[in-house]
């Protein structure tokens, strides 16, 4: 018998069930006590950051090198809803967080709302220099009265997502098929907050990013009602939507765009494409969505958090942020483009991205968004 095994046996013989349970109980209590007292898991780290973010930003391949390099521990709080994340910070959680990555309209609002630090673009000149010209400083979608809140980190567009095995892209040069009886029970709307509402409002000739009167809201109601009548399913889960699109149950997904396309394309389903319809009645029909990362104003104003902001937009990290397990998205860093393989560029539809940009509105918080969400709820209830 090997020495190690003998010693193990001695050890095990000395342990009865009661002592093992006592030990486990003690360990459990110690762990519970430590978490109750708010002690960080890695007590050896010099500093800890609390980070509220969307999926992808929490990838170990992104966080681990920074944690090791800066001797910092990053605790993640994943959000599934940008508005919900905003509300959580507004309810007082901003005191507990250092960083936030969310949809850009919400990051933009966090500066004036007082729970994100405004940043000086000059401090991030080096980072801006790497960005595509479209994201150059001062980057208007993140500006409030000349002051910037955060930096852009990921982006894409919202337009029809089409399986070209079953349908042509030409058929989706407008949103008309959503209301066409030939497409009845073949359309899937993504239940992702305001994302599916905006393109349908644009198709109805209403610019949802402007102040709307009762008549305009009435048009939004009409277009949503008509879309619901023709729609097979309204789903919130990306996997269900993607499965339906792949097997042809859904001819198109509305309200998801590149967010539900690129990961499929990267897995070889390059016949799935997200496009932007042609402008209609003078209104661009596509929508550009963007995520940004901001520094939360929690009184500590951590310098390491500011370092992380520079880190997350750096070319190498931006490339990793673009290609995650769940989704693949574009990044504003032009230098990152050289790091993508040809397959990845194709998956991200990089050859189409500026066409989509040209034919799209930039997604911001619409003045009447609550009215439109209420209409969505009402029409859904009547479905």
């Amino acid at each position, binding site marked *: 018998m090997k020495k190690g095994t003998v010693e193990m046996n001695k050890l095990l013989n000395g342990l009865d069930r009661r002592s093992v349970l006592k030990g486990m109980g003690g360990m459990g209590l110690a762990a519970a006590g430590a978490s109750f007292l708010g002690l960080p898991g890695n007590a050896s780290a010099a500093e800890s950051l609390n980070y509220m973010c969307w999926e992808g930003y929490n990838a170990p391949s992104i966080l681990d090198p920074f944690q090791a390099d800066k001797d910092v521990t990053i605790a993640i709080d994943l959000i599934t809803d940008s508005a919900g994340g905003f509300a959580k910070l507004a309810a007082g959680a901003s005191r507990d967080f250092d960083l936030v990555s969310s949809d850009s309209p919400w990051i933009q609002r966090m500066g004036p*709302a007082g729970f994100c630090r405004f940043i000086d673009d000059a401090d991030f000149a080096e980072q801006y220099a790497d960005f595509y010209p479209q994201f150059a400083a001062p980057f208007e979608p993140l500006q409030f009265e000349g002051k910037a809140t955060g930096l852009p980190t990921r982006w894409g567009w919202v337009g029809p997502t089409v399986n070209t095995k079953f349908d042509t892209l030409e058929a989706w040069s407008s949103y008309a098929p959503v209301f066409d009886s030939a497409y009845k029970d073949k359309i899937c709307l993504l239940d992702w907050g305001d994302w599916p509402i905006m393109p349908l409002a644009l198709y109805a000739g209403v610019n949802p990013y402007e102040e709307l009167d009762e008549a305009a809201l009435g048009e939004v109601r009409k277009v949503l009602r008509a879309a619901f009548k023709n729609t097979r399913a309204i789903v919130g889960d990306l996997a269900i939507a993607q499965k339906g699109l792949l097997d042809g149950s859904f001819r198109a997904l509305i309200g998801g765009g590149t967010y539900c396309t690129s990961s499929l394309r990267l897995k070889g389903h390059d016949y799935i494409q997200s496009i932007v319809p042609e402008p209609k009645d003078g209104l661009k029909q596509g929508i550009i969505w963007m995520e940004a990362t901001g520094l939360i104003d929690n009184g500590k104003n951590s310098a390491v958090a500011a370092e992380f902001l520079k880190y997350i937009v750096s070319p190498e990290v931006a490339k990793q942020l673009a290609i995650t397990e769940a989704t693949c998205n574009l990044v504003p860093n032009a230098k990152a483009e050289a790091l993508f393989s040809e397959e990845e560029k194709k998956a991200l539809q990089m050859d189409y991205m500026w066409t989509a940009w040209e034919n799209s509105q930039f997604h911001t918080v619409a003045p009447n968004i609550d009215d439109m969400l209420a209409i969505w709820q009402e029409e859904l209830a*009547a479905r």
Partner: protein
Amino acid sequence: MKSQSKTWNDPILVAAVAPLAIVMLVFFLIPLAMTILLTFQTTQYYRLQWTWDLKIWTEIFSKPHYWTIMLRTVGMALVCVVISILIAFPTAYALTTRLKTYSAQIQILIIFAFLTDAVLKTFGWILVLDRQGVANWLLSYLGLGPEAMDILFTPTGTMIGMVYNLAVYPMFTIYLSLARIDRDLVLASYDAGASRIRTFFEVTLPLSRPGLYSGAVLVFVLSLGAFLEPKVLGGGTSPLASELIRQSFETRVNWPLGAALTIVLIAIGALTLALAAAFVFRRTPAARRELA
């Protein structure tokens, strides 16, 4: 009255009750009170404003779609209770009678299914109910043509998921009630000349009522909060209260509205249970006699 005051002066009883009372107070009554308080606040620019106002309640009572969803939720919950009981009772009955030999093995299988994550089970139904799913493949194999069944993303799909996830609760409560029935009572009924059917309705069924009722209440309460099944299998065709509440809290960031809808759902659920209890009580002579 005298005995009550005596009881409350008993320090041992008070000490025994105190932990549970404190838990109920801290984890149920205070959060409930806070939820009620929240309904009188408003939101502005996605931030809570502590202004005492009846705006939210006015909105709830003036917009019929909230009530449409609430009533649909109660209706779906009641249907789920009926179907679950109809499935659970024969299963539990078979486990205590015909399948007694294999009862332990079958119970283990049911427990495995019960303990499997509801998310997995619900998503699994997509593979079964889909147009290209297992069910349609089977129907097609039986000669019923392609895509003979189209119930994914319908209220029926939601109901299948709800029943599948919840029927196990009454299965166990009814099984426990049936297992406790004294076999001699059944045999005495046969000796008195009653048929199997009459014995079932006059002996077995009445004695299994505690399990039946507790199972029904469990399914009803859990059905009221059904979130996953309408979201995954309903495809927006049968939005229920939980999704409405989620949308109000998360997407609309209207916490007072979400809180008010929660209170409405709790109130409707409690009222339905009270009515059901009153109905059952009126139909149970033993209970009436006990009260008299």
